[in-house]
């Protein structure tokens, strides 16, 4: 399988990365190189093989359903590019 320019632009949009025409063209070649490389997986017989979900045989751990941490609003917003009174500020999203 390979991708064309329109697909690359669509994927960039899905990934929320702005790409110029020139970048999209360059990426088309690069992505096709990688997709060509992974193409060899199609020759492996995977009939009846379970997909891996956990690399070590383990049961997902659970913990007590209690508050262990929190009340750290100032810490949470400390690294925000733009915040006000413990809120993250973003461009207007509701008209």
């Amino acid at each position, binding site marked *: 399988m390979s991708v064309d320019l329109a697909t690359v632009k669509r994927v*960039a949009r899905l990934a*929320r990365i702005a790409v110029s025409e020139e970048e999209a063209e360059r990426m088309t070649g690069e*992505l096709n190189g990688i997709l060509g490389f*992974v193409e060899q997986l199609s020759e492996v017989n*995977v009939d009846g093989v379970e997909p891996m979900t956990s690399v*070590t045989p383990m049961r997902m751990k659970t913990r007590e359903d209690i508050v262990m941490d929190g009340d750290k609003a100032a*810490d949470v917003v400390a690294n*925000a590019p733009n915040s006000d009174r413990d809120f993250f500020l973003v461009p207007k999203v509701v008209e």
Partner: protein
Amino acid sequence: MTELTSLTIAEARAKLSAKEITSVELTDAYIAAIEAANETINAYVDVTPEQAREMARASDARIAAGKAGPLEGIPLGIKDLFATEGVHTQACSHILDGFKPRYESTVTRNLWNDGAVMLGKLNMDEFAMGSSNESSYYGPVKNPWRAKGSNLDLVPGGSSGGSAAAVAAHLCAGATATDTGGSIRQPAAFTGTVGIKPTYGRCSRFGIVAFASSLDQAGPIARDVRDAAILLKSMASVDPKDTTSVDLPVPDYAASIGQSIKGMKIGIPKEYRVEGMPEEIEALWQQGIAWLKDAGAEIVDISLPHTQYALPAYYIVAPAEASSNLARYDGVRYGLRVDGKDIVDMYEKTRAAGFGREVKRRIMIGTYVLSAGYYDAYYLRAQKVRTLIKRDFELAFQAGVDAILTPATPSSAFGIADEDLAADPVKMYLNDIFTVTVNMAGLPGIAVPGGLDHKGLPLGLQLIGKPFEEETLFKTAHVIEQAAGRFTPAKWW
């Protein structure tokens, strides 16, 4: 008296506890070495001398009070991927500009609890995506090794290139690193250092910037096998903050060093003899086999038939997980923001400006293979292939093999800005051909120096073990180290 920075962790620890030296002296010696070298080597992206001296003074006080921890007063470098409270933590990416976490990763917390001193944050490929440290926003790291009679700058490998270079150039006593497809073992091999990727689940991933969560694992890079064992003992723990952290006690890894490997069965997988592999790599491998045989191990030929599919499967699984993990960098909660005409425009411009080329490429591949209509053909198939890769190893271990010996990399270190590699991303990916299988199967793997090639550059051997049998790797790697010797670059910087 020998230079303080040339001491191994074990040696420095002995001198500290005998009060022959202080941690402040040792730390000052490293800070001076970093100041003199870093402009050239570029191993550190942030040096924290004030903090280091303060930690060293506290260590000296604890030593005086007879309360020394296992790493008391030992100055370490920390890969920029580990969250360190109040200190530069940016995964060497532009998109995390200015990020200073308000929390500490479990691995670094464990190290400080054991008395270690932090010298600063180490350079790496952006988000740990790369095999040459050239994708760092902070520029490439120079390998302290150069070919005989050459002044060409070489890469230290990646992604833990800063960690490996700092250890090799004696700019820290040891370093933390992480390995998703070979990022500890390949740079260790390129710099004549020892690096171990432990079993998945052995070190907590809490506070480590995520790349591919089912593959990422932390481990140390050190001057020798014993130091790697000492560091891993402190880094590893059982952590309720990471649900994949395994509930097994952490053994005293250093205790396995010096133990006999007599009667151990070492597997030699025929699939690791790849086309176009330099003769020197084959010769190194044969030498490794001979050393282990001399030490009483039994050598058996094995087959791991799905080996060749590990790298292509990795280049589906890792980018898929990365595209999901890196969705959080949107210019809202931390790091870089580039303003746009609306919120989506802001996201797109922020991510376009903040991510480098290799990271964008992997996010794009990941997004594509997970997108509607392609999931089964790519991601699901890759996860099935992963099951087969793991099964290959399981069958070998069931047949009685205790550990597997392979070369660590298909070549020695290559040049910075190598045109061939820059032109073709897949060529760069092939660097991890011997290491990536281990991540896919979640197994422990160690890279240990085996010798120098005809250019005088280090080459590494890799040992792969059963899950949670790191001790077997340490004792076997120590046998190789005893036979091969240790390798230090001639200082040119």
